[in-house]
């Protein structure tokens, strides 16, 4: 279980107050839902649950692994929340209050509703088959008229409540579409279900030979399977939206009349004075009124070097305070901050996305009028050309509706999607939205972020073996006390024994400590008395000085992902136009572009610049994908036709992304693209199979040759062929 110890990164939000998010119930129990960061395996779940179970007053502590949420219930007061959260944090997990006012149970309820409908339909299908199989395989002469009647009435007794119960997802959706004046796939399904049931009841009442109850229930069952699979594929995408709101659910320490008080970030107003401790995020856009520090701005600007700030300078929400406490005056409240601007830009971008029409809906638009027109033509032809009475003509017309069963159509997309999703998940690629494959397969241009996407995303010590180990050990002894990215990188590069020192941190300059009577310093060139830069400013560096003499220069770099170059070549070979867009310094961007052989690269871009670039490409008719990980990428991720993020990206980027890939290999992007294209090929095959089936079946139905047995056979065989075809996905990937 060493695995768990490695991947837990302490979060920087330990100073949050959790009590405002606790909900008490009438039995005196306190409820709190926490979003937990870093649960990767079963042992994480066990560590959290068993540790919390030892807390006094704990009634329940249960981790939901799928949603990464921790559900806490305890006896006592709301104030205990902070302690409980701290317990989880000490285990090495990041925790955030999850705003339970956000209605996140909606999708759970919907999934349960579909499952229940599916189970009821399955129950009905099994029992009706008991009666249908004898009806199909025997004749009235053998079984007798009374037995046939009995079986029809029993089928009716089972089928009618089941149509009313399990048909609701289709009736609701059809009604909703019709009341808005347009149509969807559920309209012909509902019409077919109602007509077939009514027809079967009428036929049973007049003692006719055929009733279609088995077809109705089978139709509902197969369609619900497709519907449930589709819902499962899209569920995670919906959960993402509520996580986004949770980001604004933190708290800030406000100083009012000299008294500190914690309030929720969204209650901040302009002019308030806020204290931000070391390691906290800036809660809202503000001006520094006291203190100097360095900020990790990489999430906001993509800049890889920490930025110094001092009195009177503006800071933006989402930046991380690294080295010293700051006092701020809020200039814009949280819902008017840079973060909120980015959220708004994302919402705007998502509204644009809504115009995308899924392939299944395009098929439905074509399907509905054609099928109803055919049924109508059949009826008219039999009455006016065939001179048939209207009742049998109506039966033939309805059988056209039944036989053109949208089963295969309903399964064509979801089966392939669920297979592809689980295949990718096994290889560390998570697909969050249902139509991600369709959109990914269509792109012809791909925008790439630099820091954290093409590169690993954090600095690493270059060539650790080249430094004398005594100096490295001394430097690490200082560095391990600091949260600065370079200090962390230095500490990560050394595994030997280190000394426990009393280290002072000087924001923007460096660290100092006294070792065996000697003054030791670690930090910037100037801080360590080293000569002025020799022109090579591209390197990230730390210096070590002892008693005023520079001893050693540590060089850092944010290394490229090991397979970046190969993957980019493969993506270009797949016909994609690649663009590198970064907020980092242009010279750093140009260097990376040169190494990777990227012709189109731009640096120094702000979030809005990136978004404009995307809009231009889209306006020129391109289908654009985006791979990015930072806050500054979030609007582009939302606006792009398809967005991918590494799992190291900030939550907001991951929420905006359709596909999240784990591990340090960029190859996942290529894998997702190949899978998506293969998926679309199979979906098109499935539609072709459905069409071929209809070309055979519809003339038969129009000629009046369809019995319940033929209808059932045709329906299930077409569905099964579609499913078998979908399983070809595993071949050739």
């Amino acid at each position, binding site marked *: 279980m060493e695995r768990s110890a490695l991947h837990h990164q302490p979060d920087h939000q330990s100073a949050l107050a959790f009590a405002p998010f606790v909900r008490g119930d009438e039995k005196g129990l306190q*409820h709190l839902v926490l979003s937990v960061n870093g649960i990767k395996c079963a042992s994480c779940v066990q560590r959290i649950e068993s540790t919390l*179970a030892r807390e006094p007053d704990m009634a329940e*502590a249960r981790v939901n692994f*799928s949603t990464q949420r921790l559900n806490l219930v305890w006896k006592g007061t709301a104030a205990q929340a902070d302690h409980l959260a701290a317990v989880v944090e000490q285990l090495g997990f990041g925790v955030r209050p999850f705003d339970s006012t956000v209605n996140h*149970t909606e999708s759970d309820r919907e*999934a349960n509703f579909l499952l229940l409908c599916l189970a009821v339909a399955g*129950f009905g299908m099994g*029992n009706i088959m008991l009666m249908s199989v004898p009806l199909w395989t025997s004749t009235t002469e053998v079984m007798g008229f009374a037995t046939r009647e009995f079986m029809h009435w029993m089928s009716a007794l089972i089928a009618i409540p089941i149509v009313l119960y399990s048909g609701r997802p289709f009736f609701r959706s059809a009604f909703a579409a019709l009341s808005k004046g347009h149509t969807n796939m559920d309209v012909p399904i509902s019409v077919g279900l109602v007509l077939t049931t009514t027809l079967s009841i009428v036929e049973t009442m007049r003692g006719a030979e055929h009733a279609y109850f088995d077809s109705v229930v089978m139709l509902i069952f197969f369609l619900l399977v497709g519907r449930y699979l589709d819902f499962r594929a899209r569920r995670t995408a919906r959960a993402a939206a509520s996580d986004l709101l949770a980001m604004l659910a933190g708290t800030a320490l406000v100083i009012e009349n000299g008294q500190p008080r914690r309030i929720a970030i969204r209650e901040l107003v302009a002019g308030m004075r806020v204290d931000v401790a070391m390691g906290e995020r800036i809660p809202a856009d503000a001006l520094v009124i006291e203190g100097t520090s360095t900020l990790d701005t990489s999430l906001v600007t993509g800049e890889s070097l920490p930025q110094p700030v001092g009195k009177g300078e503006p800071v933006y929400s989402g930046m991380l305070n690294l080295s010293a406490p700051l006092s701020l005056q809020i200039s814009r409240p949280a819902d008017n901050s840079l973060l909120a601007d980015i959220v708004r830009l994302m919402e705007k971008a998502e509204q644009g996305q809504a115009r995308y029409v899924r392939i299944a809906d395009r098929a439905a638009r074509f399907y509905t009028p054609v099928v109803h027109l055919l049924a109508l033509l059949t009826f008219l032809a039999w009455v006016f050309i065939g001179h048939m009475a209207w009742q049998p003509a109506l039966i033939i017309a309805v059988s056209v509706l039944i036989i053109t069963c949208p089963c295969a159509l309903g399964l064509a997309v979801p089966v392939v999607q669920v297979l592809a999703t689980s295949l990718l998940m096994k290889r560390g690629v998570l697909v969050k939205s249902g139509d991600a494959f369709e959109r990914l397969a269509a792109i012809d241009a791909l925008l790439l972020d630099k820091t954290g996407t093409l590169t690993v995303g954090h600095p690493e010590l270059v060539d650790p073996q080249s430094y004398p180990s005594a100096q490295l050990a001394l430097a690490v002894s200082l560095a391990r006390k600091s949260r600065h990215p370079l200090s962390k990188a230095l500490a990560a590069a050394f595994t030997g024994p280190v000394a426990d020192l009393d280290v002072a941190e000087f924001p923007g300059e460096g660290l100092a400590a006294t070792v065996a009577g000697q003054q030791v310093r670690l930090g910037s060139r100037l801080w360590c008395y080293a000569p002025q830069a020799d022109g090579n400013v591209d390197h990230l560096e730390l210096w070590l000085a002892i008693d005023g003499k520079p001893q050693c220069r540590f060089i850092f770099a944010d290394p490229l992902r090991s397979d970046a170059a190969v993957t980019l070549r493969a993506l270009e070979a797949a016909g994609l136009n690649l663009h590198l867009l970064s907020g980092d310094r242009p010279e750093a961007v140009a260097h990376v572009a040169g190494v990777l052989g990227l012709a189109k690269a731009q640096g120094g871009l702000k979030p809005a610049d990136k978004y404009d670039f995307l809009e231009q490409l889209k306006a020129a008719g391109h289908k654009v994908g985006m791979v990015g990980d930072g806050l500054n990428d979030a609007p582009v991720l939302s606006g792009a036709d398809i967005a991918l993020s590494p799992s190291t990206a900030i939550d907001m980027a991951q929420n905006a992304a359709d596909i999240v890939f784990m591990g340090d290999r960029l190859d996942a992007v290529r894998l997702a693209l190949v899978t998506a294209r293969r998926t679309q090929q199979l979906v098109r095959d499935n539609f072709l199979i459905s069409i071929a089936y209809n070309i055979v079946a519809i003339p038969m139905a129009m000629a009046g040759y369809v019995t319940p047995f033929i209808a059932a056979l045709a329906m299930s065989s077409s569905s099964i062929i579609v499913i078998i075809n979908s399983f070809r996905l595993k071949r050739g990937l």
Partner: protein
Amino acid sequence: MDVMIYLIPLALVLGALWLGVFVWTLRSHQYDDMQGAAERILLDDLPEAPRVPPAV
């Protein structure tokens, strides 16, 4: 053929029994965290495992 009078209701009762069990599993939140259930099977029992919570 008279035996069908008993057999068909019997089949219905057995089917309804299964449906009832399924509804019970659904109501007791056994499908809420499928991934977690798959991982938890690998663990030894917790000392005093916390109970399955009610709906959140």
